[in-house]
């Protein structure tokens, strides 16, 4: 144990500045999260993203350096002619590398607790989710460092591996679903390689160890991306497949909004998650993760997944200055269901739109007619958008005009783009040129719709029948 501690102290001494830099990076990254509610949301989010990417790049560099400080390749290493058991070197390196995760875990935990006012359990869950990805990749970095003679060769090898991985995944994986790769072989194979390399320092034995570990882990559990094919079950659904949500209900309760619903679980799917991330994608960029959602299994036979989540004041406050779309990552994979749109009206008022219907609205007691009118317009507008989406996935635009009254322009801008990894969020914007009249009696609306397609632009005008909303604002809201 004494030797392990001494080795650890040696490496801490050697890499003290880099470790401090790592700590500073983590602290700055998470400190920046605390200003995400600022007006310059997009800028802050971009800064956070940059810091996160820096941290992601920094970790392999640090791992390479730490392992190479006592590398198992080449003939000049200090420890090779000293009475240092390889397992003690590996233990000290493991301790040091794991300690790199500590500031990350603490930062994630604290920021989750403080920023999202989450429970300790939720925060711990988020922490594990965040740290595990970094943790799984460490053995791979360590293997590269262990079998190479110096940092430049190690760094080049790692870059080549990353490029080769993405190239092969792009070429051979029809759906490009990298995340189906099973983490166990990803960690176990390089870890075996590292151990064999340190004990034998012979490349062919290291490669053999990796192959053996890959075979064993594959036999125990066939790795993705083709596990279902190997087990003779149904093929994975297409990347863009949506899961239909049924029986959705959105209810305002006290200060909270409770959204629940259910969806049919694909037969080949096996959901084991009790928690799943819920992300609010702001219209002007950036994302806010909501952590309090719960998903529960509702009957194995029916294969129905029932979910619910609560938007608490803290989340609503965070969403208050932004409009955007709630996005549910089902199972943390590429299945996104995006029927819910939160449209904050101001700091206290918001509405939740499920598909084409406004399903819940929280109005303050002194809510004015303007608010109600917006809700009405928005309901009609989203209906158009929803229909437009059936015709094109490219772009929609709608203009609303109020006859015989001050002109009101509402824009609906629903982008449905798709990239390899993300579905574009729907984007809704409400703009008012002039204040609405104080009453909505005999208020008529004409809504024009234009659908921009790749090949043609068509315009349609839809007349919305008169509708009347009068009285106090909450009463008008009930008509929704």
């Amino acid at each position: 144990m004494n030797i392990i501690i001494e080795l650890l102290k040696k490496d801490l001494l050697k890499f003290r500045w880099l470790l401090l830099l790592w700590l500073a990076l983590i602290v700055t990254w998470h400190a920046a999260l605390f200003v995400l509610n600022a007006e310059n949301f997009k800028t802050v989010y971009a800064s956070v993203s940059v810091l996160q990417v820096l941290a992601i790049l920094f970790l392999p560099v640090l791992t390479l350096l730490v392992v190479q400080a006592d590398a198992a390749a080449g003939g000049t290493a200090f420890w090779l002619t000293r009475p240092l058991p390889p397992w003690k070197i590996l233990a000290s390196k493991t301790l040091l590398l794991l300690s790199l995760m500590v500031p990350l875990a603490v930062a994630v935990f604290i920021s989750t607790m403080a920023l999202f006012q989450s429970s300790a359990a939720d925060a711990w869950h988020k922490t594990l989710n965040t740290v595990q990805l970094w943790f799984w990749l460490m053995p791979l970095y360590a293997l590269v460092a262990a079998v190479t003679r110096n940092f430049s060769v190690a760094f080049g090898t790692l870059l080549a591996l990353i490029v080769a991985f993405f190239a092969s995944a792009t070429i051979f994986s029809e759906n490009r679903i990298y995340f189906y790769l099973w983490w166990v072989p990803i960690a176990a194979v390089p870890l075996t390689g590292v151990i064999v390399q340190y004990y034998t320092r012979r490349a062919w034995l290291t490669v053999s160890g990796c192959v053996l570990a890959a075979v064993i882990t594959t036999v125990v559990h066939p790795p993705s991306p083709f596990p279902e094919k190997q087990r003779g079950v149904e093929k994975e659904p297409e990347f863009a497949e949506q899961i239909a949500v049924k029986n959705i209900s959105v209810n305002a309760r006290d200060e909270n909004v409770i959204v629940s619903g259910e969806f049919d679980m694909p037969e080949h799917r096996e959901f084991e998650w009790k928690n799943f991330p819920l992300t609010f994608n702001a219209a002007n960029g950036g994302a806010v993760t909501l952590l309090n959602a719960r998903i529960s299994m509702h009957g194995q036979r029916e294969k129905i997944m029932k979910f619910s989540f609560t938007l608490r004041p803290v989340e609503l406050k965070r969403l208050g200055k932004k409009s955007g779309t709630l996005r549910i990552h089902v199972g943390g994979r590429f299945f996104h269901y995006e029927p819910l749109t939160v449209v904050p009206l101001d700091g206290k008022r918001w509405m939740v739109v499920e598909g084409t219907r406004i399903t819940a609205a929280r109005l303050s007691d002194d809510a004015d007619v303007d608010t109600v009118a917006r809700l009405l317009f928005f309901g009609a507008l989203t209906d158009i958008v929803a229909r437009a989406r059936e015709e094109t996935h490219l772009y929609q635009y709608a203009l609303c005009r109020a006859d015989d009254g001050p002109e009101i322009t509402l824009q609906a801008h629903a982008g449905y783009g798709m990239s390899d990894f993300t579905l574009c969020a729907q984007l809704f914007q409400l703009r008012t040129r002039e204040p609405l009249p104080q009453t909505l009696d005999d208020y008529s609306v004409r809504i024009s719709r234009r659908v921009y397609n790749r090949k043609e632009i068509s315009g349609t005008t839809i007349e919305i029948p008169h509708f009347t909303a009068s009285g106090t604002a909450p009463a008008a809201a009930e008509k929704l």
Partner: protein
Amino acid sequence: MNETPVIIENLRRRYGRLDAVSGLSLTVPRGSILALVGPNGAGKTTTLKVTVNLLRPSAGRATVLGKDSRRLNWRDFQRIGYVSENQRLPEFMTVRQFLNFCQTLYPAWDAAFAGELRRQFDLADDDRLLGHLSRGMRMKAALLSSLAYRPRLLVLDEPFSGLDAVVREEVSRAILQFVRDEDWTILITSHDIDEIERLADRVAIMREGALTVNESVESLQARFRRVQVTLPAAAPLTVGWPREFLRVEQNGARLAFITSAYESDEKLRTALPANSQVESLTMPLREIYIALNQTN
């Protein structure tokens, strides 16, 4: 345990198509200092690296402290010291930190002995970083870290490289003292033939991966002599001298050469014209080495 510390048998080490060491056989007796000398690229460092399992032999084997060098593990290095001119020390450590670190590695670390060595090597109370030390001081720190646990076998690869005369003297004196007092075995390579002459019991000269000479310094100096001969006036010019006559130079009646098979002046005269006057001089190891290299 009275096993011979180092036995090298038909050792071959290839780098691609190049034979760095080819068919080397060598024995280092217990309590002796064997010096491996030879020109650059002769295979000395490769031989030492195979000995301490930094390289694996392509063929043949090296037995170190009774164990195949390929099977040497961390426990064996509690009894083996290795210092190389190219060894990378943890330069971010101070001398004190480095020695404290080494102390934890060796159960047999003798703190009093280490303290004595630190004074002897002028390293006492040194809180400078190893990276900031001169080459000589770094070498002394490396030596100290490999001496303080009293290894049974000390493998030194060019320990005098870059050291000034004073430091060389200190290191040589220390090594001689340990061998005399502690019965250590030392395998050393060096280009400093004068130091080798002071230190080594045996000399093994390597050339192009093979051994050309392997014998004690005394024996080598006994059979190599610089000979100056005054030939009789009537003596005919001789063209073919014996093979053991090296670097033969004749200037009229004066003949000078080095013999590699000296036994006595009388025996020497038998190979020379009658009535020749012979004067034989002992040679320092450096001249023997140069003569051998130039002749080969």
